[in-house]
């Protein structure tokens, strides 16, 4: 069983708002103080992939990243999670791709591998927040897609996904091959890689692919949307701080304020 997990590198989403700035020239965040990290849902997807592989004899995990040289870090990290293979696909002119174009290129890349039995992506990248890559990928490959999955299991030829539902959870069965978009859960908390695996990951190869290696449709590779302007909205509220000597005094002051609100 071949599991492909698609990984994206993003600006650290935990960067405190006061350090977050947009460069108006490029419409991109100023990455001066921020780290680039593996997207958190992608990391949940990677963890899910590795756990599943370890349960199934003979399964392999390919970590796939569409990104420039800097994003090798996420593939090294995937190797330290013990992914079997790492592939990076990139062209310099792909600077401004959107989720739909990325879905197309990833689909063609997976086809160049001879397909996959399971394709995992994060549900939504924490930078551009589209949530499109997984569903587009499935449509491009002509295979089923299950979104918001928090747990996966394989029963014979059936893939079982536990996913978020409108009011609770549901288990969806699909035949292989299929795409799953992964959300975080207590079952897929990313591991702390072993020191030995981190060391090994440094010497493993990262395969590189470019447009010429793939059968890409030039049309579908064009961004479907254009980002015209980015700005940080001003949402600051004037906060009234309560004063008091100790907890009980503050509590009593707050109780008084709350009673003044009409809601109680």
């Amino acid at each position, binding site marked *: 069983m071949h599991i492909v997990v698609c990984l994206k590198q993003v600006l650290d*989403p935990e*960067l405190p*708002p*006061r350090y*977050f700035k947009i460069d108006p020239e490029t419409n991109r*965040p100023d990455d001066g103080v921020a780290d680039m990290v593996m997207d958190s849902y992608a990391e949940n997807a990677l963890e899910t992939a590795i756990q599943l592989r370890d349960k199934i004899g003979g399964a392999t995990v390919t970590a796939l990243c569409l990104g420039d040289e800097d994003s090798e870090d996420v593939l090294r990290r995937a190797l330290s999670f013990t992914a079997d293979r790492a592939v990076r696909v990139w062209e310099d002119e792909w600077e401004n791709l959107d989720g739909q174009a990325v*879905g197309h290129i990833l689909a063609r890349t997976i086809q160049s591998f001879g397909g996959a039995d399971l394709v995992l992506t994060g549900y*939504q990248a*924490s930078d*551009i*927040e*589209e*949530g*499109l890559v997984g*569903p*587009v990928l499935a449509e491009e490959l002509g295979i*089923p*897609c299950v*979104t*918001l999955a928090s747990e996966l299991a394989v029963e014979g030829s059936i893939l*079982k996904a536990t996913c*978020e*539902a*409108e009011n*609770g*959870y*549901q*288990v*969806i*069965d*699909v035949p292989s091959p299929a795409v799953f978009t992964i959300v*975080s859960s*207590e079952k897929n908390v990313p591991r702390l890689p072993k020191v030995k695996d981190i060391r090994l990951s440094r010497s493993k190869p990262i395969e590189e692919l470019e447009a010429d290696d793939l059968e890409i449709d030039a049309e579908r590779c064009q*961004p*479907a*949307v*254009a*980002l*015209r*302007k*980015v*700005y940080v*909205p001003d*949402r*600051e*509220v004037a*906060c*009234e*701080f*309560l004063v008091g000597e100790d*907890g*009980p005094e*503050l*509590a*009593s002051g*707050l*109780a008084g304020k*709350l009673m003044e609100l009409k*809601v*109680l």
Partner: protein
Amino acid sequence: MANVLIYANQQGGNLSSNAREALAFGSSLARSANGETAAVLIGPGAGTAAKEAIAFGAEKAYTIDSPLLAQYQVELYLDAISEAFEKSQSTILVLPFDRKGKDLIGRLATRSSASALTEVIDFKVEEGTVHYVRPIYGDKAYGEYTINRKKAVIGIRPKSHEPASRDENRTGDIIPLKIDLSEEVIVSTLAEKIESALSGVRLEDARIIVSGGRGLGGPEGFDELEALANVLGGAVGASRAACDAGWVPTSFQVGQTGAVVAPDLYIAVGISGASQHLSGITNAKTVVAINHDSEAPIFKRANLGVVADYMSVIPALTKALKKRMGVNTG
């Protein structure tokens, strides 16, 4: 000119509130683009829901009333909605980016060679071109997008719009669509449904919410919040950090990836105020923050702030409120 088609989710002839939001957004978009607003309703009850969609602002409504569409089934819904998009000759399809929208939007766009945008909260027209506004970078920024393809599928972020209002006097054509749907397309099947056991008020509907974060230090802290929420008649919520730690179930999570809430009063306890959390409380009326770090970003969103260790404040607050409100139970 751009004609807008709105997929309005219905159950037994009634429109969901997400559907009414999409109707409000879609009809104002159509007006700005000098186009027509149509709705598509699918499944049993579509006829009744079509009248509702017109009362809520659609100029005409398409119906696909097939028993195969009684339950949500992703492959059948994709076929039905993409056929309706085609047949209605609209250029923009609007859907709520809710649980179903997350399955459908990217795939519908791929099928129709359309551009797709999700989490849209607003639009504006500049020099004749529609710019769609959506939050990015965990709600730290807003981005304005234009469409590069002839058609577009637009997903509206739930709770970002005032739902359309009802007017009995509106009239419009109801057009039943004949679409060949076949069970053969079904590949994903629902094997099991696990409804979450809800005690008390649903977070989304609560008028008062007391939420706890990592600062509570453990699950015991939530007992204190529960006691306070009981006195206030509110619900308990949490940050992702508290849910990830396993202190409370994920159904408690408020934020971008949890519940989007709009209570009259939101009390954030031991929550730093990450943008992804604040994204879930954009429309909360009064926000109170209790945090021992006066620099915590939550104080930039809060109307009332208390800088203190929560343990020194919450039990005393519960007691003080009990006394003032004359509550003697709990």
